[in-house]
């Protein structure tokens, strides 16, 4: 079983790194966002420093909005990258590769799980690249960069990666399940878009909860993207006042990931008979 899983994982990764433009496209968006919005909407820089007022109290410990947004962007990257896992499944159906998998004697669950693994790998690689770019902004004159807590260490980095992995697992499996159920590619693209933007905006990824109306806050609190973004900030800025304690956020993300794996394997067994 490991062998088939690995073979399909390698195939997906080959597809990814051979199509250089795809990596480029996936990165360009967050970089543009970091560059444009992150820099221009750096709200904390609009006002002269007020004595006795610390912006980090409502930015989950981030010293400025750019740092706040850059850490949230890591989760957004994970979300956007995993969406390709669903799309590639639809291509495979279209170009017949899925037929090959269906006639082969592999366990059906291998189809979503191998795909999820490669999507998660890509998501983490891209998130780490974005992290480096955000840190690098500090060295460009006139721009502000991501400022981490002075005590930021390897454990914190691993904690961030763990939160992002769990988030990516959950969303990859979600998109794969949708792609298994929806055979038409236009319907799938529509559904993915329908899902992506609300998930992104109804979360603490780009905007602190305090700026949201109550009902949106309620939605954002059950949004896995919020858990991952907030956990990342707790690690990055050693934030003392997270939305939920970090262990809870990791636990919620773990449950989300586990349920979604279950759903995708179940969907594959039902739909790839």
């Amino acid at each position, binding site marked *: 079983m490991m062998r088939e899983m690995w073979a399909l994982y390698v195939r997906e990764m080959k597809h990814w790194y*051979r199509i250089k433009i795809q990596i480029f496209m996936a990165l360009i968006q967050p970089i543009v966002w970091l560059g444009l919005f992150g820099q221009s909407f750096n709200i904390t820089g609009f006002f002269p420093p007020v004595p006795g007022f610390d912006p980090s109290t409502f930015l989950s410990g981030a010293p400025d909005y750019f740092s706040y947004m850059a850490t949230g962007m890591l989760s957004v990257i994970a979300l956007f990258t995993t969406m390709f896992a669903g799309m590639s499944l639809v291509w495979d159906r279209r170009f017949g590769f899925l037929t090959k998998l269906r006639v082969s004697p592999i366990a059906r669950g291998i189809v979503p799980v191998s795909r999820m693994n490669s999507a998660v790998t890509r998501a983490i690689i891209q998130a780490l690249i974005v992290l480096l770019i955000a840190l690098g902004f500090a060295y460009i004159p006139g721009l502000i960069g991501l400022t981490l807590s002075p005590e930021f260490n390897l454990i914190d980095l691993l904690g961030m990666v763990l939160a992002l992995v769990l988030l990516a697992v959950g969303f990859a499996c979600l998109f794969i399940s949708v792609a298994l159920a929806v055979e038409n590619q236009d319907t799938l693209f529509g559904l993915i878009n329908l899902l992506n933007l609300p998930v992104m905006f109804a979360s603490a990824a780009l905007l602190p909860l305090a700026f949201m109306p109550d009902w949106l806050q309620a939605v954002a609190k059950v949004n896995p993207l919020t858990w991952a973004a907030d956990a990342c900030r707790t690690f990055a800025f050693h934030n003392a006042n997270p939305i939920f304690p970090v262990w809870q956020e990791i636990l919620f993300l773990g449950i989300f990931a586990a349920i979604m794996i279950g759903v995708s394997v179940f969907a594959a067994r039902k739909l790839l008979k």
Partner: protein
Amino acid sequence: MAAIIEVKDLVKVFDGKIRAVDGITFDVQEGEIFGFLGPNGAGKSTTINMLVTLHRPTSGLAKVMGMDVVKEATKVRRVIGLVPQDLTVDDDLSGRENMILQADLYNVPKKDAVERINELLKLVKLEDAADRMVKTYSGGMRKRLELAEGLIHRPKILFLDEPTLGLDIQTRTIMWEHIRKLKQEHNMTVFMTTHYLEEADSLCDRIGIIDNGRIMALDTPATLKRSLGGDVIQMSIDDARDFTPQIQGVPGIVEVKKEGSEYRVKVIKGDTAMPAVLKAIIEAGGTVSSVSLQRPNMDQVFLEYTGRSLRDAEQAENSNRGERMARAMAAQRRR
């Protein structure tokens, strides 16, 4: 010999109304090359897809090596190979990478895999192109790669859905050789579909003629042809007189049809009857301006059992794909 494929009253209805396969029953013996011959939309692919566990039958029973294709699908998948009509090779991998992936999916022992892959790539003459991306391959090369992939796990039964569609005559002949060789060397059973008459005729041990989801006839090519009742001598005699009585006087003549100066003479053994027929006409003072001998071919068999020629059947099918194939077939015939 035991039946390696058993099919009983198999039916497939799509969307509640399209009866693609309409109650077919047949057996395939071990080591046999069994062919389904029929026009576009006859239900050939649908039948194969049910046997290879891709489609669930609406009703009826299908067993492969005694295993039910619905209830024991995974076991069936291990012993069969499929070369589907619509290709499934991965464009963004090289030929060799595709083969390795296939070997992994079928759990071919790692130490055997490399050797087998080289052997198979050679067999389908892709050894030089093996490390190129499949997207740079021609249609025929892809088809050959697909065949090689279908063989990597040494299946007991190979399902070939239109294996030579779109291949040139040379490649097609090579493909036929492979198929025959596989059968001989590995006692592999081959179930294939085609709408090339020559292919069915020269390759298959037995042929099922399928039309509108039903089997119209099923036998060896020789028997099917014999059932038509022999050869036809076609002659043109430029003479006002009717030579029918003289021709009928020759032993072995079954029937004589005259249309103007054209005569169609049905005989049991055309090659020996023809000189006698010509002699009779010349002795009666007639001049034969042209003569040809037609042996019964699969086209006539098809006509006999379905009431239309294969070419007409193809043209009746209105789908784009149907048209494309009919054109390809006509082009093939013109060569």
